[in-house]
């Protein structure tokens, strides 16, 4: 299978601040690729580069064979670290933004988004304003907004950040099938090792800034059974320890 996302010797800096160095990876179609690393190591920067929202300083980066910014932009839907819901639109209109942007009518966009609302336990909140929603609901609306775009590559930057542990665990359980059902290729940034391992096929570990990939570990996606069972298995625990050790060895600042 040809790679959907591929980075070759990718380097990036903000002026004199080196953020990413010699990044190499390939993500196959339909794969979920997790990215973990210490705070400030360039994870968000990497996602934005992949999504065509910035240009690499050096190296090659392509999405579905397109290496220009516009081409990568066309192939990816980016979910920012903050949910960025627009306060002047209802939850449903926020969720349908991509379709409206793509030239479909507001009615069509709302219809497409509404289907997902029921699915993600948001029914009854269609006309709620973003500030009336809880953190978990906002994240779900932002996720639906990304999903509804119908783009082949989803770039999720800490989709479950800013949530308490219990809500996170719950949301991970609905995120997994939702991602599987979409058929999309996913790059998933997380600072939570367990979350990345549970959701992804593979997890790349970045070093402190400038971020480099120090190792790639097999994730637990595709393992059947409820989340509690998966994350408490011996093999999962081994990989968790491995990842934590990699992070600790590389970054005392984590």
């Amino acid at each position, binding site marked *: 299978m040809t790679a959907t996302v591929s980075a070759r010797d990718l380097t990036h800096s903000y002026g004199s601040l080196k953020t990413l160095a010699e990044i190499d990876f390939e993500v196959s179609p339909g794969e979920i690729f997790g990215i973990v690393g210490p705070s400030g190591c360039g994870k968000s920067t990497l996602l934005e580069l992949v999504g065509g*929202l910035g240009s690499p300083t050096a190296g090659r980066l392509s999405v579905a064979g397109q290496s220009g910014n516009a081409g990568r*932009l066309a192939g990816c*839907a*980016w979910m920012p670290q903050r949910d*960025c819901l627009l306060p002047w639109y209802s939850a449903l209109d926020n969720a349908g933004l991509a379709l409206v942007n793509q030239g479909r009518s507001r009615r069509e966009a709302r219809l497409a988004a509404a289907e997902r609302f029921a699915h993600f336990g948001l029914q009854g909140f269609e006309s709620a304003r973003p500030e009336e929603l809880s953190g978990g609901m906002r994240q779900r609306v932002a996720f639906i907004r990304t999903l509804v*775009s119908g783009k082949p590559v989803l770039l999720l930057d800490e989709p479950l950040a800013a949530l308490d542990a219990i809500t996170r665990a719950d949301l991970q359980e609905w995120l997994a099938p939702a991602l599987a059902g979409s058929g999309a290729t996913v790059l998933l940034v997380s600072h939570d090792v367990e979350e990345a391992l549970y959701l992804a096929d593979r997890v790349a570990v970045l070093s402190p800034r400038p971020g480099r990939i120090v190792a790639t570990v097999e994730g637990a996606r595709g393992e059947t059974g409820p989340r509690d069972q998966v994350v408490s298995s011996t093999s999962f625990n081994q990989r968790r320890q491995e990842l934590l050790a990699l992070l600790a060895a590389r970054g005392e600042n984590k």
Partner: protein
Amino acid sequence: MKLRLWLPPLLVVLALLGLWQLAASNGFLADSLGLEEFLVPSPSGIAEVLWQDRDLILENAGTTLVEIVAGFCLALVIGLTVAVLFRSSDLVRRAGYPLVVASQTIPVIVIAPVLVVWFGYGIWPKLLIISLICFFPIVVNTLDGLRRTDPEAVRMMRSLDASRFGIFRRVEVPTALPGVFTGARIAAAVAVIGAVFGEWAGADSGLGFLILQDNAQLETARMFASVFVLSVIAIALYALIGLLERVVVRWR
């Protein structure tokens, strides 16, 4: 229901009016200023004239109101256009902003007679003067509002296939709206001053014209009545814009 909110300022105004009434009606004010009593009207005297000459005052108020509303609308169109142009290009903004600021250093009292010479006694000189002073707060506050745009939201929209205009319409405009309304409210308040200056430079009707005439004829009470009506116009416009803001900007 909002009595707690309204009562304190109402009491202050009533108390001041009461004091004024007392001081004026027993001749204390006129005496201490060394003036004839008819030059220092009391609130009740002003109210009386307001009622007696209501037709005259209302007719002139109509002229002024039309000038204010037209001038304000012209300023709104020009101000919003300039703000959007400035937002769309850094070069245009850097080139144009000094000019916008400079426009406010033009003394209205000096330019008003010139405009009357150029455009005659009709509505145009008033319209230009009003929009000259109204457009500045609109430009500055709209631009300020546009600058509050969240760059991350813009990137999110770009990633979700928004066009440049789509981002403008769905992100920048709603972000800027509170600023637009702030600018409009300030503009509404100063528009009244512009109308009066415009009429003083040359007019045959309007409250400013009436004030000038009454001043010459020492009709002090009616002057105060006209000033009162001008204030009412300004306050009404200000309140109307505030009301509109609450209807439009519901997410705040």
